[in-house]
């Protein structure tokens, strides 16, 4: 048993670091490190940069143009990129639909869809949730009826993250209403430019436009855009959800935000002393740092077991629960660190370069102006990707056997 990564892994870490030092654009890095919003162009530029290095398909095997990393290398890549201030990879293309296309798509689909995902030329969004189908995903109602060589799709999807940017959407649709819930579902790839698609923004509690509702009114989808067999979509969906949980603990991002918390707590004052020296606040920071340390080791244990080719189990649920709890806790402490200056709120403050009215003193430090919105936004973590309560169901069913 040892904690240290081996020489090869260390060398790989150095390689990632050197790449980031050279290629991560400063203006993107500064946005990430300060919690400012990223544009579509920022994400596409970063995806393109990774692609040019041969790293566009993170998690992909070499045969599909990926770097062929093992899970430890992926972990190191995620940790280093997050800590350096690289954008979070938008998962819908590279980490979600791509593995499904590789595992269940035909050769034509693989050739058509995988290269533009890797290069960033095509943006994907996810069409899973519906107004009446959240955690109970199999109750989805969006219909697809086969007419000749096309499906006619009608229904409504929701919570489509960054769907306003998307060129394509992968959707679960009902193709057999008579079959029992899970067995009448198919997996379709739909061009967002298709006639009959309407995207409407959902404004979230932080004032941001991150998610959408998408309406389908008699949208024609060529039958060759179906993945695998008709009515087998649930199998592919479950496969995808397994992939979604890879690297779910978010260790690198949490470390980055924890450093930011310490920086801010060191510059904030309480009774003339740095806030970080306040015993209670210092204890809060220590607690979350210790919890993160424990989670990091747990994550490494899961990776180590995977490397010994033990099948990854529902341990991923533990990582999801603890990772999101810790990220939420850090965002909460960040907000509380700035005291009253968490209160002034201007949505525009989320944009880099924005300033309070230059003719008067800004209310509080610039770094304070994004923290409450970020705290509110981070509440999503324990809801998406299978709520933390669903994760506990999974743990109790699969690990505990209840």
């Amino acid at each position, binding site marked *: *048993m*040892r*904690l*240290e*990564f*081996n020489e090869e*892994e260390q060398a790989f870490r150095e390689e990632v670091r050197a790449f980031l030092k050279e290629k991560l654009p400063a203006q993107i890095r500064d946005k990430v490190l300060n919690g400012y919003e990223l544009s579509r162009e920022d994400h596409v530029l970063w995806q393109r940069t990774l692609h040019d290095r041969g790293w566009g398909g993170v998690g992909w095997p070499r045969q599909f143009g990926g770097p062929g990393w093992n899970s*430890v290398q992926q972990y190191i890549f995620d940790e280093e990129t997050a800590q350096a201030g690289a954008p979070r990879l938008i998962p819908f293309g590279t980490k979600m639909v791509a593995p499904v296309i590789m595992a269940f798509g035909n050769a034509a689909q693989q050739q058509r869809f995988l290269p533009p995902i890797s290069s960033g030329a095509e943006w994907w969004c996810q069409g899973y949730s519906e107004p009446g189908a959240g955690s109970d995903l199999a109750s989805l109602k969006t219909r697809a009826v086969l007419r000749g060589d096309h499906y006619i799709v009608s229904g409504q999807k929701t919570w489509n993250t960054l769907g306003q940017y998307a060129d394509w959407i992968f959707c679960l649709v009902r193709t057999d209403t008579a079959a029992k819930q899970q067995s009448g579902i198919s997996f379709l790839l739909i061009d967002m430019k298709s006639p009959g698609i309407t995207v409407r923004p959902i404004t979230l509690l932080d004032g941001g436009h991150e998610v959408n509702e998408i309406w389908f009114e008699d949208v024609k989808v060529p039958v060759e855009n179906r993945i695998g067999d008709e009515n087998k979509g649930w199998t592919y969906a479950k496969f995808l959800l397994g992939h979604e949980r890879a690297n779910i603990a978010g260790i690198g991002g949490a470390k980055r935000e924890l450093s930011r918390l310490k920086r801010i707590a060191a510059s904030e004052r309480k009774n003339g002393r740095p806030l*970080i*020296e306040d*015993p209670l606040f*210092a*204890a809060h*920071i*220590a*607690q979350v*740092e*210790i*919890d993160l*340390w*424990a*989670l990091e*080791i*747990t994550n*490494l*244990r899961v*990776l*180590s*077991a995977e*490397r*010994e080719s033990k099948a990854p189990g529902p*341990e991923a649920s*533990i990582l999801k*629960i*603890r990772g999101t709890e810790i990220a939420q806790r850090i965002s909460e402490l960040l907000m509380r660190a700035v005291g009253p200056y968490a209160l002034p709120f201007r949505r525009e403050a989320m944009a880099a370069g924005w300033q309070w009215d230059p003719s008067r003193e800004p209310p509080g430090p610039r770094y304070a102006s994004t923290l409450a919105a970020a705290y509110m936004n981070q509440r999503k973590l324990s809801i998406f990707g299978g709520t933390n*309560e669903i*994760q*506990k*169901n999974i*743990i*109790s*069913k699969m*690990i*505990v*056997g*209840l």
Partner: protein
Amino acid sequence: MNFEFSDEQRQLHDTVDRYLTDTYTFEKFRTVNASAAGWDKTVWTGLGELGVLALNVPAEQGGLGFGPLETLSVMGACGKSLLLEPFSSSAVIATAVLRACADDAAAADLMTRMGSGAAIAVLAHYEPDSRFESQWVTTRARKSGDAYTLDGHKAVVMHAGAADTLLVSARVSGEPGDAKGISLFRVPHDARGLKLDVYPTIDGQRAADVYLKGLEVPAGNRLGAEGGALPMIEAALDFGLAALCAEAVGVMQALVDATVTYVQSRQQFGVPIGRFQALQHRIADMLIHLEQARSMSYLAALRCTDANVPERRRALSAAKAVVGQSARFVGQQAVQLHGGMGMTDELIVSHWFKRLTAAELMFGDSDTHLQRYAALTRE
């Protein structure tokens, strides 16, 4: 990065686990617990024959020369079986002290005898006002001629009553709180001026408050450098802390297993209570705590002999804080989920709960270590 145990470590675990499962049943635990001495010589001899008491004794002294990972492999089984015998006190902590001064012939000889099961030694260090701050030593040692005279009071010394030899820390110079000026002495259990007030602890182990009054030991009984014993003592305590973390994880695993079995069999409202989601989620939470604690018990074992002392102590405080918090949660919830049965003396669950309660308090509770971690992180 690798979390596999070696074949040797696995065998060690299996051997001790099998031995204790066969011989140290819950009934046996109750018998030992109810006895006057609070520990069983036959069990101790048996452990000696297995070789586990020599786990940390260097090969030169006839031992196995193992370290923290092998100790961890054994401690989980000790926890599960609720071993009352002074394994961690003598074969882990006191052995770690003596190992640091193996060039002392008497210390080397003592280790050899401890490894075979023929002798038991314990470290008597903490004091009533030290509250787990290892520098706070008020016990005095005054040298005159070829002897030292010791005066002082050591608090809640685990297994002192079972020991042939106490390793007693005392101040030869400076003030309480000074790192320098602390020496360590071998004190035979029958020394004049030594008084032990022996009592059971909450979990049925035995401990004692130790009073030293005008106690004389020959100068040759001093272990290590004059006034420089603290690093050696802290290293041994840190080793013990790592062992305790592993023991607590063994107990937590046993409690999670027992609770799962219980909720699967206990019927209410016509169904096993394990069907109720409130209980399922509680068990999931127990499991999450257990796994975080297990991770930190590995960290503790991997770091407890680190030469970089601040880093070592930072890691151990992080580990003890998490293990302590997890122990509290798992112990409390195991009792809760067993309902009234969890409250009874007749079920092993309450005894595991008490062992975890003790583990949370020993070597400093979670708050103590959270504070220590914060201080070490700031420096």
